[in-house]
């Protein structure tokens, strides 16, 4: 789950970190009031889960409170990468001397959190990684010890030659790590970490993603979820425990298992179709999940056919069949349904479907080809 900048900053402040102040407003007068408190010279920033806010015009400097109000009005009307801006963060401007990058994420190979710092901050770090990788310094942190003072210090010396600035940066690096671990994050980032002309080091932007698997034990953070930041389909999928990603094609996919679901999408494309979604109904599926999945898929007006690909292992085919039959009874699909079922309780499932006048094939290739044909895609057999 992604947090907004202002939420991430709250977590950082709770960790004791030096963070640029700021208050959230959801209307232009509110933004003006905040700007007045900060003396007028402020930056107004769109709070959306998207990179590139600056380029999209979602970050604007104001010299007066009135100007801040105008900027807020402009930004609050925007959509950035499809996301409506509902809040702005109003912060006093800082007198920036240097900009650095500090981030933490879990590294697959090292099997532990890795801290990354770069003196090239304030820019897209993935671009730095691609064009100038040696400008990024990485430190794997042993989870048994956490970050040790000398490690934070060593990283900080990569950012600042001045000992006073490096000491402040070391403190912030340690605090970022502690906030990362303490809040169950999968990513925590300060970009940029600035030093001011007056010699202060502080975070002026903040980005945090929380590991979804941590939310059950962190109700306060789970409560930070912004309903506006997810589509109705995403919210419904999350509530039903489905993994769902909306795509732009016409073949609605309903599969058990993430790997098989991806392979199914690939096969749709292979046969000249376009998948409308990734959807994994998961392991111990029950009929309700199948119904929810069908509701989500059929709500997508671009879908011209629905494809089930189920290889029953822990998933029982009869559960899936039951869900399909329930859904068919309850709602009008409006589009054809093609089904592949094999594995656990396959025969039972096949009988249930037959009783309702439906059929299921056993081959993944067959069902995908049929789905692509029904979707009107160019069915090209590449063999």
């Amino acid at each position, binding site marked *: 789950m992604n947090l907004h900048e202002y939420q991430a900053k709250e977590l950082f402040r709770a960790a004791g970190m030096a963070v640029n102040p700021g208050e959230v407003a959801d209307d232009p007068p509110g933004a003006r009031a905040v700007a007045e408190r900060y003396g007028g010279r402020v930056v107004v920033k769109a709070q959306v889960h998207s990179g590139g806010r600056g380029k999209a015009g979602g970050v604007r400097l104001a010299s007066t409170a009135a100007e801040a109000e105008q900027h807020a009005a402009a930004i609050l009307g925007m959509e950035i990468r499809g996301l409506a801006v509902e809040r702005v963060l109003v912060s006093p401007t800082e007198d920036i001397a240097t900009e650095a990058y500090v981030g933490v994420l*879990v590294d*697959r*190979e090292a*099997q*532990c*959190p890795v801290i990354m710092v770069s003196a090239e901050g304030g820019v897209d770090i*993935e671009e730095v*990684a*691609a064009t100038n990788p040696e400008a990024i310094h990485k430190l794997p942190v*042993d*989870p*048994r010890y956490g970050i040790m003072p000398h490690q934070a210090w060593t990283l900080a010396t990569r950012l600042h030659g001045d000992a006073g600035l490096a000491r402040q940066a070391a403190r912030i690096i340690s605090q970022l790590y502690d906030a990362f*671990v303490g809040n*169950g994050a*999968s990513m925590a980032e300060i970009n940029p970490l600035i030093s001011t002309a007056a010699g202060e080091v502080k975070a002026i932007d903040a980005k945090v993603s929380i*590991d979804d*698997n*941590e939310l*059950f*034990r962190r109700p306060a953070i789970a409560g930070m979820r912004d309903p506006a930041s997810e589509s109705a389909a995403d919210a419904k999928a999350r509530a039903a425990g489905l*993994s769902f*990603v909306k*795509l732009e094609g016409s073949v609605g996919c309903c*599969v*058990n*298992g*993430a*790997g*098989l*679901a*991806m*392979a199914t*999408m*690939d*096969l*749709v*494309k*292979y046969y000249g179709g376009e*998948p409308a979604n*990734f959807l*994994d109904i*998961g*392991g*111990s599926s029950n009929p309700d999940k199948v119904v929810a999945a069908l509701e989500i898929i059929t709500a997508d007006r671009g879908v011209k056919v629905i494809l089930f690909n189920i*290889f*029953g*292992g*822990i*998933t029982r085919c009869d559960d899936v069949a039951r869900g399909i039959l329930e859904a068919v009874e309850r709602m009008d699909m409006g589009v054809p349904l093609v089904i592949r079922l*094999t*594995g*656990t309780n396959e025969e039972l499932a096949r009988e249930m479907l037959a009783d309702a006048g439906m059929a299921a094939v056993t*081959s*993944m*290739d067959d069902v995908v080809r049929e789905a692509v044909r029904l979707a009107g895609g160019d069915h090209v057999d*590449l063999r």
Partner: protein
Amino acid sequence: MSIFVDETTRVIVQGITGRDGSFHTRQMMAYGTQVVAGVTPGKGGRSFDGPDGTAVPVFDTVADAVAETGANASVVYVPPAFAAGAIMEAADSEVAFIVCVTEGVPVLDMTRAHALARDRGSRVLGPNCPGIICPGRTNLGIIPGRIVTPGPVGLISRSGTLTYEAVHHLTRDGLGQTACVGIGGDPLVGTSFTDCLAAFAADSDTEAVVMIGEIGGTAEQEAADWVGANLDIPVVGFIAGRTAPPGTRMGHAGAIISGSSGTAAEKTRAFEDNGIKVAKRPVEISALVAAALGR
């Protein structure tokens, strides 16, 4: 032969009294797995009913179960909140091989659990994995026993049902398996492709390996390099997620392409550069294996 485990492996099931745990324990036992004990805190002293009138003693702790039964492997089916703790308990009780089926384990929990397993010298398979099945010998996890058959092919995969899909074709085409291993779809898994490749390399019965990867990370690329440098038997590969858009997580916490790294194209190239034949569709895997084995 098989890898990591065999018919002599003495298995405990953590979470044996739970919904998934009890179902799959019976499946494993029906397959022939030596399930010698179950562990459910607070239910020690009870007995679990296996298939055909068999019974498995249930203990309060893994330490008790190991002391009483000499178990040397464990399969973890406990809920996500307790899964890392269960792995740590098994490692702390000197269980050598630990399969964690549980999906949704917090990643930071796993950083600690993997560290302890390393400290204690235990191998963890998973989490979020279907386990390992050695056809005709033993089954630790949830891979359906009836889709496999003994034979010369080793199979390694990040995912569950896609593994079944591939194995299903192999078995249908008469290409049996020495072992099928699902290493798990999470970012941090205890046993890597490379670990499995090394084990298959040391197994004289394994004549070919199937490696089923997916987008995200660099595990497949490293495994491919290892194959190129060390493995003499043929390897057939498949990568799921060629059509996944970058930056989006596809179910598996691992299946996300970030920036320029972890794409299917990149992995396919790494496979091909190291002499691994890449199937475009799951159904092609079996044919490529047959060709590689000269059948």
